[in-house]
């Protein structure tokens, strides 16, 4: 590999990271908004939030991306590729994230809510001061997983000819013909980014737990935990009748 090719890759990495950060910000906002709406007292709010989740979880992120890029302009909105990508990833992963937020909120002991009612906190104060601070550390491991999935999802944007890492690899392959080398290198690059993201998320988790007086659990060498936490409770429950 020559210098200019490496430069091509690093430019791609930079766009990939931008795409990941923008989409994550959008997804995080949606996740908290929709996730809290799904725990609302009002049935209609819960229902609408549920519809959002089922629609955006039900369809494919890539199809959504193509729709935003190719179909939306026909309605008069032309989106730049990077924004179509950001929007599609943010909307999709926001729906997944909202399930994480909802689950974490519901995992806070009901007695905590009652104690907050007994002190006359308003519903919003209960959420902000009591429920969310306890729920957020619970969200960190599943958010880490989603962030890695989101990072992997940014590769889809290459199909809109956005110059992120996978697209740059395509250019490199076309100019050198060295498919194995090119794709081998960028796979390693993705892996390194995923590893760094996981380290940062672990750090944030430790901080969040420390801020409520808890110690984090031990994790493996890659320290990314798959959503088997839910899985394990699911499985333990399913095993209950045997």
């Amino acid at each position, binding site marked *: 590999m020559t210098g200019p090719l490496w430069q091509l890759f690093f430019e791609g990495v930079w766009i990939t990271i931008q795409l990941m950060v923008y989409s994550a910000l959008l997804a995080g906002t949606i996740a908290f908004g929709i996730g809290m709406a799904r725990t609302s007292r009002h049935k209609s709010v819960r229902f609408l939030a549920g519809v959002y989740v089922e629609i955006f979880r039900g369809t494919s992120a890539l199809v959504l991306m193509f729709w935003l890029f190719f179909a939306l302009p026909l309605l008069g909105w032309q989106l730049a590729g990077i924004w179509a990508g950001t929007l599609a990833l943010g909307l999709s992963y926001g729906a997944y994230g909202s399930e994480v937020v909802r689950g974490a909120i519901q995992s806070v002991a009901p007695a905590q809510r009652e104690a907050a009612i007994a002190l006359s906190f308003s519903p919003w104060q209960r959420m902000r001061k009591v429920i969310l601070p306890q729920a957020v550390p619970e969200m960190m491991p599943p958010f880490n997983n989603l962030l890695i999935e989101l990072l992997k999802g940014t590769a889809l944007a290459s199909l809109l000819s956005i110059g992120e890492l*996978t697209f740059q690899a395509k250019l490199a392959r076309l100019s050198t013909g060295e498919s*194995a080398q090119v794709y081998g290198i960028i796979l390693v690059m*993705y892996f390194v980014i995923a590893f760094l993201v996981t380290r940062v998320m672990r750090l944030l988790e430790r901080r969040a737990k420390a801020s409520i007086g808890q110690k984090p659990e031990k994790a493996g060498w890659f320290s990314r935990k798959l959503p088997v936490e839910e899985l394990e409770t699911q499985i333990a429950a399913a095993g209950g009748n045997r």
Partner: protein
Amino acid sequence: MNTWSWDYVGEIMPQLLEGLWITVQATILGSLVAFALGLVWALALRSPVRWLTWPVSAVVEFIRNTPLLVQLFFLFFVLPSWGVTFGPLTTGVIGLGLHYSTYTAEVYRAGIDAVPAGQWEAATALSLPRRRTWTAVILPQAFRRVVPALGNYVIAMFKDTPMLSAITVGDMLFQANSIGATTFDYMEPITMVGILFIVISYPTSLLLRALERRLVR
């Protein structure tokens, strides 16, 4: 400004359904690969032999933490240069199955861990051979527990099949794109693909949740 035309939808539907059939094939075949290969990883990772567990866990982590799309490109462009030529669909099925096997491995692991220690002890007390313990005692109990979780990954795989269009597999998205490229009207084809995805994946996930509840009881 374009208006929605049901006539146009009617015209393109046969081609989209053709794509849907490919999508379904890819999902089913990919699932079979993922189920089988995942079990291999899970058993290898439980092996007491370090030189086996370490490389397997490295490979599994690597595949799980890198994009499926790039893995598909790798298989599609690199395998032929190694003298292995598969059709696009076969390559796609291998890619999907390989990628998701790293997730199903984790599901099996959790399922096996959830079998109570007493079951192992009872098998030992009966002097069952190791192989028999696995096939007659542990795995049957583990499989029962993992069905809903595996089902969720099948749905996830289904939603990832549009990526196969990037390696020229004629799935739904591929068909929609080729229709759009000739008519310059992407609205109906891509919208219909999105709707078809929801129409299939939402009831399936409801079905899975019902199954899960039944298993819980």
